[in-house]
Each structure stands twice: as structure tokens, then as C-alpha cells.
């Protein structure tokens, strides 16, 4: 090693030597000081402009260099603003001003990097330092609350579950093929399919950049409309080998339980509902037999079963271990890491677990001065045991715990009961002592004893193996020109293993024979990109031109799905496909993804004058296999500009702005997440019919749509962005942006007449939508002796409006449904935010019959059949009766604003961080109770029901059958304020003294304690106000976020 360094030194000397002897030089001396405190600045590079001749300042800030008369000297020091000064006659005294750290940062942009100070688009950046030591399971969670312009909501507290990510609101409401509002993830330049980002290891991330406006997105053309998130993984650096370890271990538990009725309360409420129904029936038919209450003596039932206690785990384990080695020599550098993460769920932990193992190897090799090759390669193995329904009213442990009656015992210990029906006659599930788990005789359907349910899913899991990476070659044949070729692939294998035992959970949920199911899939997506970039500076002008070309292939998947029925196994461990069951007990299916191909050309021009006037233009041309014959290719342009006002003379001496940049941009991007082959008339299957008595069916085919749609094309999003970045009073950074984002040609399947006989309406580009918003980011950093303080905050306001749904369409039929509610609970309509809550508006409760009689309209009584205790509904259309036409928009599920606040402090060896995030301005639909199961349990709010005049004006009376639709009509009764503020992370760290750790070769060692989701301030009464999904904020019994406490250790060698 040493020899080589000597050699390099000698070569360097030889190269510099002839220059040093250059004639007619004068000897220049001087001193460089800090503008802030006047102190000397050592280590400043002093270069003669236009040459490679340079020297460094010494410890006292002084330098000596021979320079030609009349030349300029350039002074550079990391962290300080560079300065160019003409050589004078006497000693030069140069002061350098501190460059605000953030502004000297480099930002990753599409196909390259830019200095943050010259960026003209709206890009938010999160660096490794912000993420280190944070307990993040999936990388999108690390963005929640960190940057403006993002709305992120977890779709479930199930460990490893993906979150809904929205960049500046929703971009489309076409749902072909899933959630098309998920941004495009690009990892080290490889386009990774949407939502498939779970494989990355937290510590491996160098930076995450969110491209928010079309000016920065346009380089990704037809796939960028929902936003682009660039992830860069860590690379090795030449020099000593660095070894890092970071790990934590902790426990999680639920932060909230619902208040549900206990057994006595439940029986009382049921008796009351039955009594009221009986009284109503008796009014028309006095001859009915005497009323018999369903429960003779409610108080004898006591508290009963607390089903929530049965499913929640207060000490679910959680750990992460990450280990990395990086370094390199002159020619090669590498970064490699191994990570292991394990998280147990807080709901029925036996069937809610997540594990992930990661391996990464990134390296670069300089084959020649002008040629670099390298690869970034990540492997992950994930294994997830899921409890099934994580936000569903149709069963699963959470929904069961909420809906089951408290009278049914958890475990039947009374031998007389256990010997009776249904326990004695069916294959019921039993506990370790042989006692059957209780089966409700009050609440049936999918609602089952969660402990018994666990046994029917024990051992089942899903898995995935991902290999994502790229290889690249980079050629720099001449100064300023870089040619790069990248081949990226994502190879994934994923599948499911599931054994279903014979079981009787209740009479609706019976499994009569065992089955073992295995699903296996393989998907290989790849892309090839070639780019050439040329950069040059002429005088104060700098320009850069990028030309590129790429092809992309994804959804290249194949899968098989095999089930063996009636296998002779009693548990998951015993299950195997080696059992030789007869052929008619084997079912199998297979699938192949429809290839999605994109071919593209793209270019970008950047120009700046003195880093003061900035300009950028982008054009991308994309062809996609999803576009119709008449529109195979689309063009996606953008322009943007910036003006660094603080570089102008008139601001040179101001004390307020040390940096100020105004910027604006406009661009057009697309979304090609539209259905495959929407443009041709395809034959559809599932049109089968049985002939003969064998029971076998014949397969039929007929066209799906009555005619093709050759005009089908991308959805187009045009966005305008105006903003500024400023550094104020040195310690504050401030960014503000305004944008308008208009999506045109949103794909819908506009209704064609049913008489044409199609099964599906052919797709067409018909609908438009608009998002406008403002975003602010504020940062503060100050060092006061040993105390360093930092604070960051961001807030984003968003307004979404559907502006067109096509010809004569005022609203989309359907909407989100909640089991047997009378109508859909949301509606997408022109002039309203997408999927707004839609239903009746209640105006209190009729207290007396006189109130009912007094509520009159054109035709007399508006609700003639209502009784005291029923909701008074607003007669919105004024027609004198309550009909479906009286429904109206009653709330927006999407937050109007989202915000995040981080506060850091460090004092000597201690550091402290608290990070909180929140949303506001949205409503949550609370659909926790099954409407079609008349005997389902209630929350204790039902105890405030109306029981007589003056008792309640918000909770209606209880009556079996609910004739007024108090509960089955979607109304504002079900809506609650969805705003919340959550202390997401609190962390306290301590750095061990260097003197101690250096003895064992360590460079740093930090121990820390972390609390995640410590508390949440919200008015929402459900488990968790953070509810993701295709439409946010619909609570069907969401798996809540865990509260965790962890201890961690981070060391570096």
C-alpha cells in the first residue's frame, strides 16, 4: 500500500513540476479568514484559474503561490462559498463566507445529479443522516412527514405492509391493475415497479429524492405522472475500510383499545332493541304473543369476554441488525452489507409476523482513466405471516373481536356445554387442554372466535425473493462527455404456502376437508438505458446536454397455483404436496402476466449563467405497449427556470438573505398505467356452461366489449410550479411552492348502452382532474458552544377537484361500499374531490311524535314513518320526502393538509430527536360494526342512545330491523374528524467517549433508546386515524400502528 502511495505522489509531483517552473510568475502571498469570526481558515485550496496549479493554506490560513500577473485565484473550501479574486500587488487578504450546508448539497435528479443551488424543479430530498437509526421497516415510511408534498398513510399495521403514497395528491382515478397513484420508484437508476419497494435495507440508503413537479419528472415521461421517487444506495469510497453496525431490539404493543359493550350491557341493549321492535309490531297487531326478552337476566352475565384482550399482544418482539463494510482502493470501491429485520405483529402475533434478510453489494471499478464499470446489486428474502383481513368488515381477528358478542366464552370450560351442540357434533377447534374455543350463537357469518381462527391459519406464510440491481459502464472519452450504458433488472420470486385444516368455526365457516395450497411466481423485469451527457463551461456560462434512450419490459411474470385437497395432514408442518392424493382432489391454475413494454428517447438541456440565471428543458418520447394503434407514441416536454436573486449585486450586502432563488416550471407527464390491450376487442372467458351429467363444464368465449378503442392513450398531467428557496438570517432555510397539477384524459370505461351486449365498457380517455396546493419547508440549525439545535418543519396544503368525467357524466356510479349499507358511501363527482363521502345529512333526532309531525314539506310530513328516536334527515332536494336524491357530499377522505416536525438537539455526547407528523381536514368513515349481523356487538357510545325525549340528539334509538335506516343509511353519523398529530419517533442517544472506544479500534459508538408512535392526538375514536388504501380514511377495523420501545446500538470501526 505505502509503496503505491509514494508512487502516486511522485507522479503528481512530476506532473506539477513543469508548471511550477513556468516563467514570468510573481510570488503571491496572503491569508484566508472566516467572514463570520475572522478566524484563519486552514486547508483552503488556492488554484490559479484555468490551470491545475494549486496550493493549500496552512494552519494560520496563509498561502504562497507563484501566479502569472493578472491571473485570478480561486479559493475553495468545503462548507464555504468559493471566491475568485484577481492577483494583486500586495499580500491578499481573502475572507470566505460560510456556504449554507444545504445549498452546497448535491441532489439526485433523473439520469444524473445537480447542485441543489441550481435545481429548477421541485425536488425534496431526504439524506441518510435523517434516516439513520430510525426504526423503519419499509422505505416509504421513512418519507412520511419528512418532506412536503407527500401524503403517506399506512394501509395496515401488519408488519411489512405497504403504505399508500401520494405525491401532490392523487393523479388519476383509473384503477385498472391496482393503485395507479403510487409513484414510480427508481432505485440506482432501475425502474422498479410500483409498490415493490419493500426489499430495501434501511441503512443502505444514501438518499431519497422525491420529484414533485413535471419539470423534474418529465425525464421519466409517460410513467411519471404520479410522481417519481429516486433512491440511491450507498457506495464505497476510496480509503480505509469502514465497518458499521447498527441494531436495535424492542417491543411493540397496541396504543389503544376500543370501548365495547360488556356482556351485561350487550344483553341490555339487545333486549331494548327487541322490545322496541315488538312494541312497534304490537301497535298494528295487538294479538301478538307476550313479549319475551332475548336475555332474561342481563346483570347475571357479568362482564363476559373481552375479545380485544384475546387478540392484542403488548410485547410483540421487534429487532433489526444491519452490518456493512465499505472502502476501496484507487481503482475499485465497494459497499456491502447484510441486514436482518424481524417484526411481530401486535394483533394475533401467531399469525402476524414479518422477517426480512438483505444482502447488498455495490462496487465500481475504474478500468481506465476514461472507463468505469460497476454494479449495484441487492438481494432480499421476505417472509410474512399475515392474519388475512387487515381492514375488512368481512372477518379476520380484528373485525371478529369488534363484532363478537361478549357473552360467548373464549374457551368453553363447562363440560355440559362442551358436550352439547355445536361442540360435540363438529370438528371444533380446541385449546391445549382439549377445551373447545367458544362459538357464538348470537353472531355468525364470517365473524368467528379469533383464537380458533388462528389455528386455521397457523404456519401459513407468503414469501418473496428479490434480486434487484444493475450493471453499468461509463465512458468519458473527452473532457465533459460521459456516455453511460445501464442494464437493470428486477428478478423476483414470490409465493404463498397455506394449509387449511378441517375446522368448524361456526356453522357458516366450515372446512370439511384439509387443503394445502402453494403458489409460486417468477417475474423478471428489465430495462436498458444508454445516455450521453456533455457539459461545458464557457466564461460564466455553463451548459449541459443529455441525450438518452431506453427500453423497459415489465410484468413479465409466470405463476402456478396448486391445491391438494383432503391431504392426510393435521397441521402446516405435516402438509406436503408429496401426499399422493387422487387426481380429482388436485386443482391447479397458472397465470402469465401481459408484457408491458416501453421504448423511449429523451433529452435534457441545462444552462446557467454564473449560477445566477438557470434554465432547463426536457423532452421525452415514450411508446408503450398499452397505447392504441392510433397513439403509440407520446411526447412529454418541460421547461423550467430559476433566478438566484442573492447573487445579484443589489443583494450582496444584505443581512437577511444569504441565499434566495426563485424558480418556476411547467411540464407535461403521462401515466401509462392503463389496462393492457384496452385498445383491441378481446375475447373473454368465464363464459362457461355445463352440458351432460358429468358436471364438467364447457369453456366459452365471446368478445368482452362490443367494439375496440384504437384511440386509447396515456393519461396526461400538466403541472405548473412556482417556488423559492431561501436562507434567511443564516440559520433558517425556507422553501415555499405553489403548484397546479391538471390531469387530462383519465382513463375511464364510459358507459355504453347495455343493449350493445358487452360485458365491459371499452376504456376511453375522458375524465379530468385538478390538484392545487402550496407547500412550505422551514429549517433551522444553530450551534451554541456544545449545544447544537436543529428543527425542521413542513406543511402541505392540497385541494383536489374532479373537473370532468366525460360527456354528460356528472358522477361515477358505484363508489366505495360498506357491506349492506343502503348506498355506496363515497361518490366521485364533477366539482368535488375524488371519492368524497356521500350520504344523508342528519339534523338531530326526533325527540317526540310532535317533532315528527312538525317536520313537513310540500306533501305534508317529510318522514311520515319515523318515530321518536329516529334521525331527522335533511330534505336536500326539497321534494317533501327522504329519498336517495337527498344524499349529499358530507366529507373528504383525503387530508387537506399534512405536516411534519422534527426537532434535534445535541449536547456534548448526548443527542435527542423528536419527530411528529399529522394530517388534518379529512373525515374518517367508521364502519366497525357489521350492519347485516343484527346481533353484532357495539361500542359503548351506543349507551348514549336515544331512550326518551331529551336523552340524545346524536345516537338514535335501537330497534331490531331499523325501519328508519338510522344505521343502514350512510350519513354523517358515521363520519368523524380524521385529523391527528402523532409523535412518530422520539430518540435519545449517547456517544461513548472517543478516548474509551478508540482503545478497541472503534471510531464511534452510540447507544440509543427509541420510542415509536409514542402517542397520537386525535378526536377519532377508532383504533388508528391513519388509514391507507385506494380511498383513504375508510375504517373497517384497521390493523392499528404499533407503539414500540427499542434500545439500539450503532458502532463504526
Amino acid at each position, binding site marked *: 500500500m505505502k509503496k503505491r502511495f509514494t508512487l502516486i505522489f511522485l507522479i503528481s509531483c512530476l506532473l506539477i513540476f513543469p508548471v511550477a517552473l513556468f516563467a514570468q510568475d510573481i510570488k503571491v502571498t496572503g491569508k484566508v479568514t472566516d467572514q463570520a469570526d475572522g478566524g484563519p481558515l486552514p486547508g483552503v485550496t488556492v488554484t490559479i484559474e484555468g490551470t491545475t496549479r494549486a496550493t493549500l493554506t496552512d494552519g494560520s490560513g496563509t498561502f504562497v503561490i507563484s501566479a502569472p500577473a493578472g491571473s485570478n485565484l480561486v479559493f475553495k473550501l468545503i462548507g464555504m462559498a468559493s471566491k475568485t479574486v484577481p492577483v494583486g500587488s500586495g499580500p491578499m487578504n481573502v475572507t470566505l463566507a460560510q456556504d449554507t450546508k444545504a445549498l452546497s448539497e448535491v441532489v439526485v435528479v433523473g439520469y444524473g445529479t445537480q447542485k441543489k443551488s441550481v435545481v429548477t424543479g421541485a425536488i425534496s430530498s431526504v439524506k441518510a443522516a435523517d434516516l439513520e437509526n430510525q426504526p423503519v421497516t419499509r422505505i416509504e415510511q421513512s418519507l412520511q412527514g419528512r418532506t412536503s408534498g407527500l401524503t403517506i398513510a399506512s394501509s395496515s399495521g401488519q408488519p411489512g405492509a405497504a403504505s399508500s403514497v401520494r405525491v401532490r395528491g392523487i393523479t388519476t382515478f383509473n384503477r385498472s391493475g391496482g393503485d395507479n397513484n403510487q409513484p414510480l420508484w427508481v432505485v440506482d437508476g432501475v425502474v422498479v415497479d410500483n409498490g415493490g419497494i419493500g426489499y430495501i435495507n434501511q441503512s443502505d440508503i444514501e438518499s431519497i429524492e422525491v420529484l414533485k413537479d413535471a419539470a423534474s419528472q418529465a425525464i421519466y415521461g409517460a410513467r411519471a405522472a404520479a410522481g417519481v421517487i429516486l433512491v440511491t444506495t450507498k457506495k464505497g469510497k476510496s480509503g480505509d475500510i469502514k465497518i458499521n453496525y447498527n441494531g436495535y431490539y424492542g417491543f411493540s404493543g397496541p396504543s389503544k383499545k376500543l370501548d365495547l359493550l360488556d356482556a351485561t350491557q350487550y344483553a341490555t341493549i339487545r333486549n331494548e332493541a327487541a322490545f322496541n321492535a315488538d312494541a312497534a309490531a304490537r301497535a298494528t297487531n295487538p294479538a301478538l304473543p307476550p313479549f319475551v326478552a332475548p336475555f332474561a337476566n342481563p346483570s347475571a352475565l357479568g362482564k363476559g369476554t373481552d375479545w380485544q384482550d384475546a387478540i392484542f399482544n403488548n410485547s410483540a418482539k421487534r429487532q433489526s441488525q444491519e452490518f456493512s463494510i465499505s472502502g476501496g482502493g484507487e481503482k475499485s470501491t465497494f459497499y456491502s452489507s447484510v441486514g436482518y429485520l424481524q417484526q411481530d405483529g401486535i394483533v394475533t402475533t401467531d399469525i402476524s409476523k414479518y422477517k426480512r434478510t438483505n444482502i447488498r453489494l455495490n462496487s465500481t471499478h475504474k478500468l481506465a482513466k476514461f472507463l468505469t464499470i460497476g454494479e449495484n446489486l441487492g438481494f432480499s428474502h421476505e417472509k410474512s405471516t399475515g392474519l388475512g383481513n387487515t381492514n375488512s368488515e368481512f372477518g379476520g381477528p380484528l373485525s371478529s373481536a369488534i363484532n363478537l358478542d361478549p357473552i360467548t366464552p373464549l374457551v368453553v370450560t363447562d363440560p355440559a356445554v362442551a358436550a352439547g351442540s355445536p361442540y360435540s357434533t363438529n370438528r371444533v377447534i380446541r385449546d391445549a387442554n382439549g377445551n373447545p374455543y367458544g362459538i357464538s350463537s348470537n353472531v355468525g357469518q364470517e365473524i368467528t372466535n379469533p383464537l380458533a381462527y388462528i389455528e386455521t391459519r397457523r404456519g401459513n406464510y407468503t414469501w418473496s425473493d428479490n434480486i434487484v440491481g444493475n450493471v453499468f459502464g461509463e465512458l468519458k472519452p473527452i473532457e465533459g462527455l460521459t456516455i453511460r450504458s445501464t442494464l437493470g433488472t428486477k428478478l423476483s420470486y414470490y409465493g404463498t404456502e397455506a394449509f387449511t385444516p378441517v375446522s368448524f368455526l361456526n356453522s357458516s365457516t366450515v372446512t370439511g376437508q384439509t387443503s394445502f395450497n402453494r403458489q409460486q411466481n417468477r417475474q423478471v423485469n428489465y430495462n436498458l438505458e444508454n445516455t450521453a451527457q456533455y457539459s461545458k463551461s464557457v466564461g460564466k456560462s455553463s451548459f449541459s446536454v443529455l441525450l438518452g434512450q431506453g427500453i423497459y419490459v415489465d410484468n413479465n411474470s409466470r405463476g402456478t397455483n396448486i391445491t391438494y385437497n383432503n391431504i392426510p395432514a393435521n397441521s402446516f408442518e405435516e402438509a406436503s404436496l408429496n401426499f399422493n392424493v387422487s387426481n*380429482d*382432489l388436485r*386443482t391447479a391454475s397458472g397465470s402469465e402476466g401481459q*408484457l408491458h413494454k416501453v*421504448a423511449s428517447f429523451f433529452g435534457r438541456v441545462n444552462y446557467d449563467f454564473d449560477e445566477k440565471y438557470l434554465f432547463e428543458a426536457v423532452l421525452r418520447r415514450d411508446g408503450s405497449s398499452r397505447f392504441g394503434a392510433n397513439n*403509440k407514441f407520446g411526447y412529454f416536454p418541460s421547461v423550467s427556470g430559476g433566478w438566484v436573486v442573492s447573487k445579484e449585486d443589489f443583494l450582496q450586502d444584505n443581512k437577511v438573505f444569504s441565499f434566495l432563488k426563485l424558480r418556476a416550471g411547467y411540464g407535461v407527464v403521462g401515466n401509462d398505467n392503463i389496462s393492457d390491450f384496452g385498445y383491441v376487442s378481446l375475447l373473454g372467458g368465464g363464459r362457461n356452461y355445463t352440458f351432460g351429467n358429468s358436471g364438467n363444464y364447457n369453456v*366459452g368465449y365471446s368478445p368482452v366489449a362490443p367494439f375496440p378503442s384504437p384511440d386509447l392513450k396515456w393519461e396526461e398531467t400538466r403541472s405548473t410550479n412556482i417556488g423559492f428557496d431561501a436562507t434567511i438570517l443564516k440559520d433558517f432555510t425556507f422553501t415555499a411552492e405553489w403548484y397546479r397539477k391538471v390531469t387530462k384524459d383519465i382513463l375511464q370505461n364510459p358507459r355504453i348502452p347495455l*343493449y350493445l351486449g358487452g360485458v365491459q365498457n371499452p376504456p376511453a380517455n375522458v375524465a379530468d382532474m385538478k390538484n392545487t396546493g402550496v407547500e412550505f419547508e422551514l429549517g433551522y440549525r444553530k450551534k451554541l458552544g456544545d449545544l447544537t439545535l436543529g428543527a425542521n418543519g413542513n406543511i402541505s396544503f392540497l385541494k383536489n377537484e374532479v373537473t370532468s368525467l366525460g360527456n354528460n357524466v356528472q358522477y361515477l356510479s358505484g363508489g366505495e361500499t360498506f357491506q349492506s349499507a343502503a348506498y355506496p358511501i363515497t361518490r366521485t363527482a364533477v366539482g368535488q374531490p375524488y371519492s368524497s363521502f356521500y350520504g344523508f345529512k342528519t339534523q338531530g333526532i326526533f325527540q317526540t311524535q310532535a317533532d315528527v309531525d312538525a317536520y313537513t314539506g310540500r306533501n305534508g310530513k317529510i318522514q311520515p314513518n319515523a318515530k321518536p328516536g329516529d334521525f331527522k334527515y335533511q330534505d336536500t332536494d326539497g321534494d317533501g320526502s327522504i329519498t*336517495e336524491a337527498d344524499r349529499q357530499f358530507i366529507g373528504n377522505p383525503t387530508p387537506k393538509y399534512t405536516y411534519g416536525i422534527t426537532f434535534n438537539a445535541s449536547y456534548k455526547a448526548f443527542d435527542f430527536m423528536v419527530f411528529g407528523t399529522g394530517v388534518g381536514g379529512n373525515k374518517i368513515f367508521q364502519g366497525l360494526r357489521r350492519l347485516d349481523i*343484527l346481533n353484532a356487538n357495539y361500542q359503548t357510545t351506543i349507551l348514549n342512545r336515544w331512550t326518551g325525549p331529551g336523552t340524545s340528539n346524536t345516537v338514535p334509538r335501537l330497534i331490531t330491523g331499523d325501519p328508519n335506516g338510522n344505521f343502514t343509511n350512510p350519513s354523517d353519523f358515521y363520519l368523524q374528524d380524521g385529523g391527528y398529530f402523532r409523535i412518530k419517533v422520539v430518540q435519545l442517544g449517547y456517544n461513548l467517549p472517543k478516548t474509551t472506544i478508540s482503545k478497541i479500534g472503534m471510531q464511534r459508538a452510540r447507544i440509543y433508546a427509541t420510542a415509536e408512535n409514542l402517542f397520537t392526538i386525535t378526536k377519532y375514536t377508532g383504533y388508528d386515524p391513519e388509514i391507507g388504501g385506494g380511498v383513504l380514511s375508510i375504517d373497517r377495523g384497521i390493523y392499528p400502528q404499533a407503539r414500540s420501545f427499542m434500545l439500539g446500538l450503532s458502532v463504526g470501526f
Partner: protein
Amino acid sequence: MKKYIKYTVLFAVALMLLNSCKKFVEVEPRGAFTETGYYRDATEAFNGLVATYDILGYQANNFVTKVDVVDAASDDNVAGGGGPNDVTAMQVMSNYTLTPALGPQDSLWASGYQGVYRANILLAKLPAVPMDDALKARYTAEAKALRAYFYFDLVRFFKNIPLITEPVTVDKAYDIVQATPTAVYAQIESDLKAALAETNFPVTVPVATEAGRLNKGIVHALLGKVYLYEKKYTEAAAEFKEVNGATPGQPSATYGYNLVASYASLWKNANKFNSEAILEITHTSKSNTTWSCLTCGEGNILNIMTGPRNYNILAGKTAPDYISGYSFLPVTQNFVDFSHNDPRFRASVANLDSLEKNGIVTYEKGYMNTGYFVEKFAGRLSDKTTGGGNVELNYPQDMYEIRLADTYLMEAEAIIVGGGDISRATALITAVRNRAYADGLQHPVAPTLQNVIAERRLELAFEGHRWFDLVRWGLAGQVLGSKGFVTGKHEILPVPLQELDNTKLKQSREWGGSL
């Protein structure tokens, strides 16, 4: 060093060439055909025919079937289910609160026209398909008869419907207008007669391989029924006689139709395609139907829908092996009062009320519970699928669209109302009753329309005939008035509201329109 340059440049150039063509983004669908590239041979024509048959067993994703809707609307059942909004389309039929915007009409209209379209496209493609001419002639006859069947339901439900007999092109899509019911009936008759005239259209089909496929016997029965609805009684009686045979109670000569001995056995799964079945709508437990697409499945969803909720047989007791279902279509007290002394009662009605009161079973009472369920359709554990898919969606029971007892009674009705051999009418009704009693004795009743009406209600309970019959007899207002039926309005369903958007269709007069 030169090597590197050389290879890098070569590499880059090769990639450029590879990528640049337009062909790259033209992708062929995997495992799917395009309409223009299909119907290439007899097999593909057959697949098109199967797709047309598929609509016979149509079950909408929202649980609407022809039978469950008309049952809910009749005086024999109410909608039931889990609550007042469980399958809203059935609820609003049950209490006659349907509106042009809300009801079962969308599903029934859509399925009818899907059937028509599939028949039309097959008929349009068949002439050019290279295949055996005799087979082609048979497929043509079947497609026409199916089209007639779909139009017959459409015209009965909606009266004012577009008459479309070939695939519609994009430019004509919005020019379609409604035809008169007379024109629709004329097309139905013409299609059925064309099928009967086709020598390659079989008289009967082999049960093992083709049962359920149309033949001349079925088409005669259909045509008779069409005539009956047109009040062409003489023609109707003639068609039915062709089906029913010379001597009521004896096998018909041409088709071998004969009443089965045991009424109750008609709904046993083992007795599919018995001698009494004429048009039997097939279902199977082998299609692995899942909740993702009810319409795609071949299981019978009525079985799970009509089962009692949370049904448990108490320990040590014996009771029918009903599955726990969704408690739709509880039987009305009115029907129970009317029929409980009839020998067919126990084969028609499941008396859960009595089973529970006698301490044999427990069950959860659903919406509008009466304690009585539809025995004919309530699913049985013994019929549960052992294959894949969701068990509840894969019950295999077939449905009788037309069976011999029905054509006996329809012929008797045609004779009684339209004139003819009244002793034959008596014999037909008596044959039905004798089979019901199955005691070797004679159970004649007078050949009156009133007796036919009573007999049809008892014999064909819940099989989807009662509501149509009441409307046909003009008795619906009288019988169903207490449920909300309004004469002059509820005889037909409204044209689906959305179907009026941007089209030239008009709403029926009954529903406030101009037709």
C-alpha cells in the same frame, strides 16, 4: 485501452439498434384472443355457442338472478337476507319501492342483451367458419332459439325493448330505438320456428354428454309458452300437446317426457335431467367459483342464499343437513297458510320454526324471518363441493326453467281459456295432482282457470313462475297490492335509468315515460 473503447462503442451501438423499432412496443396478448382473430374452426364456433348458453344460468355479481327477483316480488316469498339493504335489488322488488335508478332491472336488462349479443355475433360469424355444414346448421338453430329465449324474458320484463339481430357497429351504437312488443314477439316466433324447421337440430340429445342443450322438444315447449303469453291459446295448446304427448301421465312419444314418481325427488341432486325436465338450467360444483367473479361461476348461488343463518343441529338430534346460508327468500305466512295441507308442502317449504320449537336445531333469525325457508333450494351439506373455489358459491343444483308439470298446466290453461278438449285439460291437471299425492288414488279437480291458478302455485312454488303468472292473469294488483304492487305500473320493470342517457330509448309509460 483501445479494446475498452471498441467494446463500449460496439455495446452502445448494438443496444441502440435493438431498441429503436416501433415493433418493440407492439405486444401480443398472452392467452387471449382478439375478436378479429377468432372463430376459425368448429371448436371456436362451439366455444362461442357455449358463451351464449352461459347466459341461461346468469347470476349477477350483486346476487340478482331472474328467479330470486321474481320470487321476492311474489306473494310466496319476501326478500329477507341480513337486513333491509342486503341485496337491495331484491328488497325493492319485495316491497315495490323500485325506481328506474334502483332495482334489478340493470342486471336483467344487461344479461338479456349479453345473451342476444353473443347469439348475434355467433350468427354473424358462423357463415364464414370452415366447418361441417350440418354442425353449422345445428349451431345456427341453437343460437336462434337462445336469442328467442333471451328476447322472451326481456319483452316480458320490460315490454319496450330494442330489437337487435346483428352486432351493432360503433357508428350505429346510439341510433337504436325500441321496437313494439308485437315486433319482438314476431322475431321470437320466427327464431323458434326456424330452429324447429332445421333438420340438423336434434329432436332429443344424449343425456350423458349433451343434456341441457337445446333440442326440438325444448323449443316446442318454449314456443308454446310464448304463444300463451301472446294469448294465442290454440297455437299454444298445440305446441304443448306436442311436448306433453297424447296421454297425460304417460311418456310422450317423441321426446319421452314423463312425470317422475316422487315430487320431492325433483330437487335431489342425483336426479338431474330426469324425464320431467324439459329446459333445465345447469350448474356444477366443479367450476371453482370465487368471490372475485360470481358471474363467471357455474355454481348455483340460490342454495347459499336461501339457507337459514347460523344453522346448528343440536346434539343427538336428526334434522335435514341444510347449510348455513344467508336467509334470503323466507316463505310468507300467506303461502304456508295456503299450502300446508298439500302433499307438496314438505318438499317445498323448510319449517325451521318447528324444528327450533321442538328443540332440534337453532338458527339465527335474519331480516323478515318467518321461520319458513325454501326447501327446494336450501343448500345441503351433502352437495358441498370438494373442489376448489369458495364452497358457498359452488353448489351444483340445476334449475327447471320448464318442466313437464308446468307444460301440463300451461296446456290445460290454454285449453280452458282458449277452448279445446276440456277433458284433456282435466286429465292434465289430474295427472299433476295424482303425482303430487302419489297414493295410487285419483285426485281430480274441475277444469277451471281458478284451479289451474291454485295448482300452479302449489306445484311450481318458488320456481320463478308465480309473479309472471299473476301479471299474465291480470291478478297481480289484487294479490300483490298489499306488498305495494301498483296496477298499471309494476307489471313491467322500468327501462334502466342509465340506459336512457345519450340514447334514443324512452322510458315506458308505466314508469312515467312516453312509450
